[in-house]
């Protein structure tokens, strides 16, 4: 007999053997291995599909209809465009009939449309696979493009009601300036770039995935309720662009998800539903050149600045596909997560804007895609309930009526409650 009872206990445990029951057999181990291999193939296929869909969604393209419109406008009054071919003469001629030194005017939606157009002639007739697919989506959802109506001169015009919603209080101040603007139209916006993460965001993450097992009832399940709010501020006009917008974008998101762990690691995958409210208030400013016909037959160049207010409201319903991981730093439990949420808009009204353009929104269902990455401390309240404070980076986007992706980055803070169901 061992003199040290604790040593005796340890030795007894060390040499202890237990025969596995019939359910734990060599054949079962081999069956699991096969399943694991299939699981890996399943995950890779899913990931490839997700990447492909994401790639299509975020790939930039131009709207064929809109570019055709811009081209037509440029050529419709070419006879009066003398000093600069880059000017949109139809607007300039219209404005030249107003007061010469200082005027107050109400701009119409038609007069502002060229500023929203992608005027790159190389892209005007180009349509990517993504654009074609989303046009199919638009047809499938029925209302897409229904409110875009051609005007008498063949110019596509957006619904004037939505434009009126937010474009009031516009003033035009004319300032004499002999210099010409070299670039009349806006560059295509750089929206729709794919989500990118820095190496520091994922270096310590555990991406190991276990086999896909359909026996979900045996897995631990969690329900997660979260709320998050974020903002994106543009505080200064961009002096280098003819049209620039400043303003604030706010978003609030409410989410419920079910999560489970497919293997023994603490990583979780889940699916859920979230509702997002996204609003923006801003002010736009536009520098334009006007030519005034003088009595001697020459033109006088007048620089004018036009300002106005824009605001919009977008509500969205999405299905977030979530990944959650856990790490421990010193004495703190950290949770990190990423998610991608395809969905659709339930409310779209007003005039959406970014730093260099604005677009009157058509009130219809539009496809949307959200992404979120977050990391924050996890605090255990009791055995089943954890609270997570989540500083997050989010990308909110939607496909507008011109099949153009509009999107914004947000920084925000959220709170999540993670409750273990079984």
């Amino acid at each position, binding site marked *: 007999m061992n003199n040290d009872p604790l040593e005796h*206990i340890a030795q007894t445990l060390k040499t202890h*053997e*237990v025969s*596995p029951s019939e359910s734990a057999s060599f054949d079962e181990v081999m069956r699991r291995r096969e399943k694991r291999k299939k699981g890996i193939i399943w995950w890779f296929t899913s990931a490839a599909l997700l990447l492909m869909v994401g790639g299509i969604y975020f790939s930039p393209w131009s709207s064929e209809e809109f570019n055709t419109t811009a081209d037509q406008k440029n050529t419709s009054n070419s006879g009066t465009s003398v000093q600069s071919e880059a000017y949109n003469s139809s607007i300039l001629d219209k404005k030249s009939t107003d007061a010469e030194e200082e005027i107050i005017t109400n701009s119409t939606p038609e007069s502002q449309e060229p500023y929203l157009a992608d005027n790159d002639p190389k892209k005007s007739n180009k349509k990517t696979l993504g654009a074609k697919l989303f046009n199919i989506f638009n047809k499938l959802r029925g209302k897409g493009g229904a409110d875009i109506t051609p005007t008498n001169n063949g110019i596509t015009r957006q619904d004037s009601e939505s434009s009126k919603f937010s474009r009031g209080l516009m003033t035009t101040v004319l300032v004499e300036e002999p210099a010409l603007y070299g670039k009349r139209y806006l560059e295509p916006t750089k929206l729709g770039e794919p989500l990118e993460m820095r190496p520091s965001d994922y270096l310590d993450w555990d991406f190991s995935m276990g086999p896909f097992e359909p026996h979900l009832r045996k897995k631990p399940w969690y329900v997660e309720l979260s709320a998050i709010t974020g903002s994106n501020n543009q505080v200064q006009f961009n002096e280098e662009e003819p049209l620039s917008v400043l303003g604030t974008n706010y978003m609030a998101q409410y989410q419920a998800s079910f999560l489970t762990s497919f293997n*023994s690691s603490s990583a979780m995958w889940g699916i859920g539903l979230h509702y997002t409210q996204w609003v923006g208030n801003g002010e736009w400013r536009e520098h334009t050149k006007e030519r005034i016909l003088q009595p001697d037959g020459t033109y006088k160049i007048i620089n004018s600045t036009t300002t106005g207010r824009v605001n919009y409201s977008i509500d969205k319903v999405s299905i977030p596909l979530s990944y959650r991981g856990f790490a421990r730093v010193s004495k703190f439990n950290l949770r990190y997560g990423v998610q991608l949420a395809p969905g659709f808009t339930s409310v779209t009204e007003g005039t959406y804007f970014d730093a260099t353009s604005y677009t009157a929104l058509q009130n219809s269902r539009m496809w949307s895609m959200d992404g979120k990455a977050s990391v924050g401390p996890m605090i255990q309240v009791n055995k089943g309930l954890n609270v997570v404070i989540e500083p997050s980076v989010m990308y909110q986007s939607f496909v507008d009526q011109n099949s153009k992706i509009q999107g914004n980055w947000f920084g925000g803070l959220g709170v999540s409650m993670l409750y273990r169901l079984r």
Partner: protein
Amino acid sequence: MTDKELVEGCIREDRIAQKYLWDQYSSKLLALCMRYTQNQEEAEDALMEAYVKIYDNMKKFRFQSALETWMRRICVNVSINKLRARKNIFNELSESEFELGYLDSQYNQLQVNQIMELVHQLPTGYKTVFNLFAVEGYSHKEISKLLEIDEGTSRSQLAKARKVLQEWVTKLGLDK
């Protein structure tokens, strides 16, 4: 069949070698898994998961330790992961008081099942650290890394486990 032949056979996906590995070690490893898990069903699940990893990673075995030691390490890791997935074991590493149940047996007559029952009555944190240190021979540094706790916590958990077990032995007068 030697360890080398076993390993080489498993790398070749030789079913006979793989089956032999199962027959040779599954009983020992199941007992190991049972010390960390709550019941035999969960332990068997951990055992099979560990064997999947063992077969899949056999080519990474470098003979720097005995094959059994390497396999035991994998089983410990899988069991700890299962434990972690089931609950937050850090919360189990608490200062809370508890009492072991009474086992009506003499120390020198203690059966292994009774010892298992005794150890299972320990809080998860005490039990895990005791098993890792006293049975598996892990150092406190290794335990702290595995469980993601401080070395000091590992030491204190072991001391508390020892104290509880010692009290139980003294209570029964089995240390005489």
